[in-house]
């Protein structure tokens, strides 16, 4: 204690106190800050277009119009098909929270039965792609190598080499494909949500879609090995450069300071 009080007038004392105070407030905030609570609320049970229409009137009609004809706030849903609804609602993108450059993925508040009802209602407005079956999108037995080639030719421009995502103009972006289910990837290719172009079966047959899904699963799935160690986000040279500066050179400079401080000094006079 005596040692501590003797040093309280040290020129660096203020810096140390400041650092401690910052660490303490930060730590306390992290400990006590309220966690985001989901405010899911579930109701609904039946299985009909009527039920879907009711759900639609509550969650969608304010932007897409009472008959799905579209308004200035949202596009027409006539002919988008059940696959589009399954993707947009299933990934939580719809209903949108707020207008913006792009509607981001968020927690889905509907259960699958409700989504199916909504999809049935929207599909009844005009013909469009149906929700794919497991047989269509299940990547088992697909050609991963071919999928990689297709991915690099058609998807990597926006989604990056392994589907980590990338920027588009004016705040829009291609989202990361990590953790996206095969069904949703398939539906996205089929329907072209938001800024994505659509790849209908006429331009990209079902088999190629499967190959792509298999490739994404192989390079960006839960069990993808990373033979080189930490993948640093898979973002390429920018994150590598940052890592080299901080953990390479930064650590070395710290080591240099340490070495220089520990020298065979001539006796201090």
């Amino acid at each position, binding site marked *: 204690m005596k040692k501590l009080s003797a040093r309280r007038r040290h020129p660096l004392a203020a810096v140390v106190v400041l650092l401690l105070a910052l660490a303490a407030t930060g730590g306390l905030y992290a400990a006590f800050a309220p966690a985001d609570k989901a405010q899911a609320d579930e109701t609904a049970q039946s299985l009909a277009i009527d039920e879907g229409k009711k759900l639609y009137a509550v969650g969608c009609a304010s932007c897409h119009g009472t008959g799905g004809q579209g308004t200035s706030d949202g596009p027409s849903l006539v002919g988008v098909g059940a696959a589009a609804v399954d993707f947009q609602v299933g990934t939580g993108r719809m209903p949108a929270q707020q207008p913006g*450059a792009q509607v981001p993925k968020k927690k889905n508040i509907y259960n699958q039965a409700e989504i199916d009802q909504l999809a049935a209602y929207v599909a009844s407005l005009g013909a469009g792609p149906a929700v794919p079956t497991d047989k269509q999108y299940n990547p088992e037995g697909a*050609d*991963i*190598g*071919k*999928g*990689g*080639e297709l991915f*690099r*030719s058609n998807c*990597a*421009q*926006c*989604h*990056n*080499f*392994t589907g*980590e995502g*990338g*920027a*588009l*103009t*004016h*705040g829009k*972006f*291609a989202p990361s494909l990590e953790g996206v289910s095969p069904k949703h990837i398939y539906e996205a290719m089929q329907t072209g949500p938001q800024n994505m172009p659509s790849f209908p079966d006429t331009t990209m047959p079902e088999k190629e879609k499967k190959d792509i899904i298999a*490739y994404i699963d*192989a*390079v960006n799935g839960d069990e993808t090995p*990373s*033979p*080189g*160690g*930490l*993948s*640093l986000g*898979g973002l*390429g*040279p*920018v*994150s*590598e*450069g*940052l*890592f*080299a*500066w901080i*953990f*390479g*050179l930064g*650590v*070395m*400079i710290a*080591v*240099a*300071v340490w*070495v*220089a401080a520990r*020298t*065979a000094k001539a006796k201090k006079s």
Partner: protein
Amino acid sequence: MSTNTDSKRKAPAGERVADWADGRLGIYSLAKANMRKIFPDHWSFMLGEICLYSFIIIILTGVYLTLFFHPSMNEVEYAGSYVPLQGQLMSEAFNSTMHISFEVRGGLLIRQIHHWAALIFVAAMLVHMMRVFFTGAFRKPREVNWLFGFLLLVLGMFTGFTGYSLPDDLLSGTGVRFMQGAILSVPIVGTYLSMFLFGGEFPGGDFVARFYSVHILLLPGIMMGLLVAHLILVFYHKHTQFAGPGRSNKNVVGMPLLPVYMAKAGGFFFLVFGVIAVVSAIATINPIWAIGPYRPDQVSTGAQPDWYMGFSEGLIRVMPGWEINLWGHTLVLGVFIPLVIFPLVLAAIAVYPFIESWVTGDKREHHILDRPRNAPTRTAFGVAWLTWYFVLLVGGGNDLWATHFHLSINSITWFVRIAFFVAPVLAFVITKRICLGLQRRDKEKVLHGRESGIIKRLPHGEFIEVHEPLNQEQLHTLTAHEQYKPFELGPEVDEHGVRRKLSRGEKLRAKLSKGYYGEDNQIPKPTADEYKEITSGHGHH
């Protein structure tokens, strides 16, 4: 060490070997002259060592990689152990790099050490250069060595570029295409240059083999020569040191090369190697298996060069796509202007020492380093340059700034376009103000001592803070720097009353000199009289 002159006694084996060598190599006089060479101690003097050691590590690991790498663009079908690429067509260069990464024992680790060490090497060179810059270590007699170091930085950048292009992967191939596009934008000769470099249309079948000889032979050979020259000059000039008691322009205070520095430097080599090895063992770099082989019809987002080329990427990314079409020819200013600015960015910092020596007109040798605050204009220039460089790096990574900070890429691009011109000026002004403020604080400290934080109540009720006077050593260190007088043009007319001819250069020099050393551009350091006056005992202030 006994100096026994008795010739009858047989000398020990070590001495005989040394004698043998001395008769042929003259090592005694060499060792005598150099073994006790003194090096001063400061952590920032070890930044150059980081460069040297990482360079050695790069060469050693690079030699290992050449044993397995095939610099050929012949097309082969991948049949290695990485499943997602099986059956894909690729060049032999890419195939052999995959082989190094997945089948060669220790291959991936060595590849990652090589690549990480390269990133760290160039980063260390930049930091080392900035240390030399901000402390004024480039002044006479070290200007040539400054240029050697600068050349090493530039060559390091290009060695890195040719190196990461070798695997012929989709990312680096995009980078080579980028470079080829820049070459094509050169008026008149662009297409010829490109055809010459690639042996025909891009990408052709030659560039990997050509880059290979440039990367492993030409550039490292030149760098090795420059490096040796750089080190010889460090020895010849002796190392600079910071001002302090007992240190002058004529001595070097520190520890001798042998044994202290040899031990320290040797140990530091292993520490540097250790850090690089740990980084390489825990973090992936350039995962070419995830990136895939290069095909000119494919491209990915997030295609950036390694960080040291990032500023050139920034120049291109933020440049408006201007072009002029005349008589069936296109002048692509959107690419050509960045190509012209690219060397200018680097040259701006390289030529600074010569500008400063012209402004000061100082022809003396300098072996005592400046504290950055005591050369406010130089420091401000350096910070402005770094700001400029950083703004361009932001431009080069604009897409990742956009996705990670939820910004519009267009706004970032516009920010960079404006900041390219404005940010360096702001940085200059702010840095200069900070330096002058620090100079004032130093003056204050010298004259009044350090604020002790102890509040004392005087008998008549007044509260004062007790200031502790600095000791002699600190006083010396804070006042050791010399201050230039601004260069004066002299009277406008000579002794005969005739108007003197003043060249434009001289007038400019006088103006710049005033900006450097004129009133308000440096704080006059406290004089001995001022110090005496204040410390003579008229109480506190």
